[in-house]
């Protein structure tokens, strides 16, 4: 277990060790669902939701099932099944309890099942030997960090679509990757504050 406070991990996973901007995980939905701020917000909230829940669930599965049975090497398969099943259940709960939330999250939830950032967060918290509260903080923080990154990009793209002339060869993913690089450089500016790894 590392001797870092849960709050520090929470803060660091949003800014200095942003899962998208430092590890470049979850890129496919980041590139494709960042045209409008509204849909980016919907997907971002869904990622926060799912990442928090699956981080805790995977922590429990790893330390209470896989470790006692000495089956740590099965973590990839186990985590993927847990994520897929949990997203289904979460979708049903949301559909039942809140029409409003379902209207904005509904179609994004199945999309997140295959978001590699969700699996990445679960694997990182095992590699870094976080305890339960640290894992919770890391999961939630990574989700918020991912949302922050896609919202920033969606804002820039929305403005660019009205004002900027992009050279044809760079339209779409090309310019988006360049912008992402610049945002990532900007986030490095936070790294003096706190560092986890």
């Amino acid at each position: 277990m590392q001797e870092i406070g849960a709050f520090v991990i929470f803060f660091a996973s949003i800014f200095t060790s942003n899962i998208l901007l430092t590890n470049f995980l979850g890129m496919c939905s980041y590139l494709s669902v960042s045209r409008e701020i509204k849909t980016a917000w919907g997907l971002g909230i869904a990622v926060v939701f799912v990442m928090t829940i699956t981080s805790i669930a995977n922590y429990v599965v790893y330390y209470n099932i896989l470790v006692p049975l000495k089956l740590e090497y099965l973590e990839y398969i186990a985590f993927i099944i847990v994520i897929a099943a949990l997203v289904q259940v979460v979708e049903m709960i949301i559909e039942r309890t809140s029409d409003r939330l379902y209207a904005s999250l509904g179609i994004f939830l199945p999309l997140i099942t295959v978001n590699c950032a969700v699996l990445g967060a679960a694997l990182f918290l095992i590699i870094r030997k976080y305890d339960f509260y640290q894992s919770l903080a890391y999961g939630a923080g990574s989700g918020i960090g991912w949302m922050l990154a896609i919202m920033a990009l969606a804002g820039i793209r929305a403005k660019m679509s009205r004002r900027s002339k992009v050279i044809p060869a760079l339209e779409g993913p090309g310019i988006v990757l360049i912008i992402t690089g610049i945002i990532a450089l900007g986030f490095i500016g936070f790294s003096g504050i706190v560092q986890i790894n």
Partner: protein
Amino acid sequence: MYLSYLLPPLAIAGLATALAIIILLAERYLMDYGEVELKVNDKLYKVKGGSTVLSTLKQEKIFIPSACGGRATCAYCKVTAVKGFGEVLPTEAPLLTKEDLTKNVRLACQIKVKNNCEIRIPDELFSIREFRARVDSITDLTYDIKHFIFRLLSPPEIEYKPGQYIQFQSQPYGDVSDSVYRAYSMCGLASERNQVELMVRLVPEGICTTYMFKHLKAGNEVIITGPYGDFYLRDSNRRMVCIAGGSGMAPIRAILLAMTPEEIERRRPIFFFGARSRKDLFLVDEWREFEARHPAFKFVPALSGPEPDDDWTGATGRITDVVAQFVPDAKDCEGYLCGSPGMLNACVEILCKLGVDEEQIYYDKFA
């Protein structure tokens, strides 16, 4: 010893089973909405909650038009949601116009019946039925258009206005595992209530037409629903200008065949049929006979690109030019059009230019 080999698969299987049980329990308790009341116009239905409006209504034998099978792409299944459906879902938003949003129009294939709710649909939809029918005959009209006759089994009769269409359900074949619905206009005599006639053009790579052309045989049973559509003869004294291309002849044929001799005398219909070359023309003899029987009717086939060996002496050129040539003044006319969107838009434009009121141009656009 063996345990170390068995343990990993058992652990994963156990985990998967546990999660599957959680999902099943969630489905059992969370997705069970019990019996709810669905009010359609003024009729009250007691239905099982949890499904989409489209499939719930289908179970109650109310058929809403739908071509995409509930995937939110065709936007045919629009209904007015009066109460009980919450906010517009992201899947429907792209298909709803501003007017739809203000009138609470939603896609029946996306909104779900979860509690007591109310919708409004056009009254005609109540008369739509699902028919079991048997293929009576399939004949070639051209190299890519076939004439299908279906004998109705149950219910044994269909009542429709000439010009309306039905939806045909294809069955899975080859690599196609889905069954899809596609709309085709009826082309036969509406008075022959025990059968449905269609003219279908083979769409390259089309799921449904490939099924109808390659897999459907005389004697097979099929499912059709109908009648749908608001393309039919309007009652007036105006002259009729009918324009069709390809299998668009179907609804025009149904309309013209159903007219009484007095009506034809009064409305003096002229039917322009556009085709590329002679091999795309069909039923010309039938129309010439019709012309001989009804002197007030005129049939004008027009070829846009006749082949040198077609030996064509009739009208040539674009259908819009031919129409302008034959009906220079169309102020007292009404338009009935059926064909591809491109052709229709051009024809609506030329008819307006020739003096037809746009309100009096009725058309059936191929989607």
